[in-house]
């Protein structure tokens, strides 16, 4: 070279410049790797490989603190010794000391360092001479440390320049790890959010679809979170009656939502077959008691509304009392007749939960969860309360049902993160349109159709069946119902024929058929030897004919079956009752 360079770069300076460029390139590459990372451990392994090569060490390992910050676990390792997965206490070994002090170190001779953990060397036969270790930290957050073992070539010792270089790389790696972790957490959050959205969709599919604008029943459900512990349902029966329910599962979140899904499904399934709200709640209670865990329970109201009579049969298992708003502006509340479902396996009575029959007479029925009454109406935390609900219902009288539901939930102010609790409200408006007012009083509509007294013998059952058919024809009863009622009465008469007279052949049975308002009433009386009337009262049908298929049929078909006190206290008087649907009404 003819001309010596004007500036001579000294050896260390040239080394720094080379490292500076290598550092930049390595940083750029590591950043790309971390940004594209799908698996953090794979990327970490790549980074440890690059760093070990750059510093020219025999081996390298990267340790990360666990969540509890109690242990350090080796996530990536290159070189002669494979220690990936090795876990050491967060304050043990040289790596532990570096993490605790948050300060990089050069240990030129590990044999003289009391902190050195020789266990790995003992197992592998490898000899660790010197260690270079730098902490992985971002601001004050400790993440772990990266450790290099045995410098190649030269005196085999790491230099202060190596430590600076490693610290710079460690800082970048720490930032990248933190970013990757946050990205993972974000992905996980996204996944959970998607699953919750799916759960919400499934839940809302369990609620009934909005009916026609002039439907007598409608509900609204606003979940406080993605998923809800509240539910309501309603569906019409073939005979025109409407079944409905509303429930509230204790607690919130996913476990409440799952119990809600179960209870709502049970109701959907049983509601069409069990036409007694009290018996139905008894069955749902038993099912939940058998399988529900963690002391969860459900408060629930179930009912059946008959638009032709305006009568609601209601049963309440520990739920906030439903309100009836009468047509003259008064309110009546219906307290619970039994505990919430899922607490006591035995229902309040043998027949399930108690039922109340409520004649709406053109009024309306409102069932709601405590999310409505305990919802805030202002920013100061004033609750709407039962009084508030009553006020809105009174103000909105005469308006469409849906408007009234919207008016109630409309005054509730959601907090920063939505409603405080699930808000669910069900309204039922009795129009009483086209209903003769006389049917509201059963006594005035009573009419005897047929009365007979005949030998209690099996061959007379045919006669009774013909009589019942004639009576139902006279009442213009719909075909299927006629056939079923004949069967039920026949089964009840068999009871008398088989058991009342204990084998005596001269016993008699009296059959009285009458119309009582909209009901068909059958009274069957036997005249067996004088019986203690007190012993009969309240006696259960099952006690008379144990385990009978006949009893099942009677219960299945008739709306009401009970023993009543016979006139003059003689014999047994069984009363069967069935709400009648005429051919004209059914068409």
């Amino acid at each position, binding site marked *: 070279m003819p001309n010596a360079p004007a500036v001579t770069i000294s050896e260390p300076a040239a080394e720094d410049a080379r490292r500076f460029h290598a550092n930049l390139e390595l940083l750029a590459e590591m950043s790309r790797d971390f940004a594209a990372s799908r698996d953090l451990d794979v990327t970490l392994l790549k980074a440890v490989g690059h760093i070990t090569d750059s510093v020219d060490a025999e081996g390298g390992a990267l340790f990360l603190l666990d969540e509890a910050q109690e242990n350090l676990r080796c996530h990536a390792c290159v070189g002669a010794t494979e220690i990936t997965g090795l876990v050491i206490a967060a304050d043990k070994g040289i790596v532990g000391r570096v993490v605790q002090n948050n300060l990089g170190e050069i240990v030129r001779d590990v044999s003289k360092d009391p902190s050195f953990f020789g266990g790995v060397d003992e197992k592998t036969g490898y000899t660790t001479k010197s260690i270079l270790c730098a902490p992985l930290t971002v601001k004050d957050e400790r993440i772990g440390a990266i450790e290099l073992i045995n410098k190649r070539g030269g005196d085999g010792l790491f230099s202060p320049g190596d430590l600076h270089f490693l610290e710079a790389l460690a800082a970048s790696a720490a930032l990248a790890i933190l970013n990757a972790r946050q990205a993972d957490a974000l992905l996980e959050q996204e996944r959970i959010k998607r699953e919750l959205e799916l759960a919400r969709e499934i839940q809302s599919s369990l609620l009934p679809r909005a009916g026609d604008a002039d439907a007598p029943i409608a509900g609204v459900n606003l979940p406080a979170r993605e998923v809800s512990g509240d539910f309501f349902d309603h569906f019409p029966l073939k005979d025109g009656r409407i079944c409905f329910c509303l429930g509230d599962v204790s607690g919130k979140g996913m476990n409440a939502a799952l119990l809600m899904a179960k209870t709502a499904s049970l109701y959907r399934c049983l509601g069409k077959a069990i036409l007694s709200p009290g018996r139905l709640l008894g069955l749902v209670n038993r099912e939940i008691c058998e399988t529900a865990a963690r002391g969860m329970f459900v408060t629930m109201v179930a009912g059946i509304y008959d638009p032709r009579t305006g009568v609601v049969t209601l049963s309440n298992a520990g739920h906030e009392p439903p309100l009836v708003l009468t047509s003259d502006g008064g309110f009546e509340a219906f307290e619970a007749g039994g505990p919430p479902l899922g607490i006591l396996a035995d229902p309040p009575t043998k027949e399930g939960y108690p039922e109340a029959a409520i004649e709406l007479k053109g009024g309306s029925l409102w069932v709601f969860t405590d999310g409505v009454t305990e919802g805030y109406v202002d920013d100061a935390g004033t609750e709407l309360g039962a009084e508030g609900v009553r006020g809105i219902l009174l103000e909105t009288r005469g308006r469409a049902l849906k408007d009234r539901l919207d008016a109630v939930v409309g005054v509730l102010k959601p907090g920063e993160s939505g409603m405080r609790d699930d808000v669910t409200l069900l309204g039922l408006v009795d129009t009483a349109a086209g209903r003769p007012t006389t049917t509201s009083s059963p006594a005035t509509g009573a009419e005897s159709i047929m009365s007979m007294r005949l030998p209690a013998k099996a*061959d007379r*059952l*045919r006669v009774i*069946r013909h009589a019942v058919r004639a009576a139902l024809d006279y009442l213009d009863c719909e075909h299927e119902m006629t056939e079923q009622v004949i*069967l039920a009465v*026949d089964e009840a008469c*068999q009871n008398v024929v088989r058991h009342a007279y204990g084998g005596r052949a001269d016993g008699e049975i009296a059959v009285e058929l009458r119309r009582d308002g909209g009901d068909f009433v059958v009274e069957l009386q036997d005249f067996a030897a004088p019986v203690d009337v007190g012993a009969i009262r309240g006696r259960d049908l099952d006690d008379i004919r144990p385990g009978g*298929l006949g009893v099942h*049929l009677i219960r*299945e078909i008739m709306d009401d079956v009970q023993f009543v006190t016979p006139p003059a206290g003689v014999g047994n008087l069984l009363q069967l009752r069935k709400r009648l649907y005429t051919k004209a009404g059914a068409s």
Partner: protein
Amino acid sequence: MMHEVKDAGGAVVIALEGDIDLQTSPKAREALLAAVGRGKPVVVDLAKVSYIDSSGVASLVEALQTAKKGGQTLALAAVSEGAMRVLKLARLDAVFTIHANVDDAV
């Protein structure tokens, strides 16, 4: 109640007719058990049953149980509207094998 028994394609076909109630079900029970006693597959033709009560249904169940114990089959065929109503109310419509007509059953 009347009944008629005939053989068809290796099976015994017993056709019940009329009302099967407390009065007549003992006879139906006897006829059903006799048909099962012949050791062949049994088909009970219910086409002409106008009425059946719980005692009649109990006879059918007893015949089914007896047939099963003997490794035989017992199927119902051409079940009338009235009989089907009771089987459904008693939730026994899934317990019995039910054929649309006797020809399908044998």
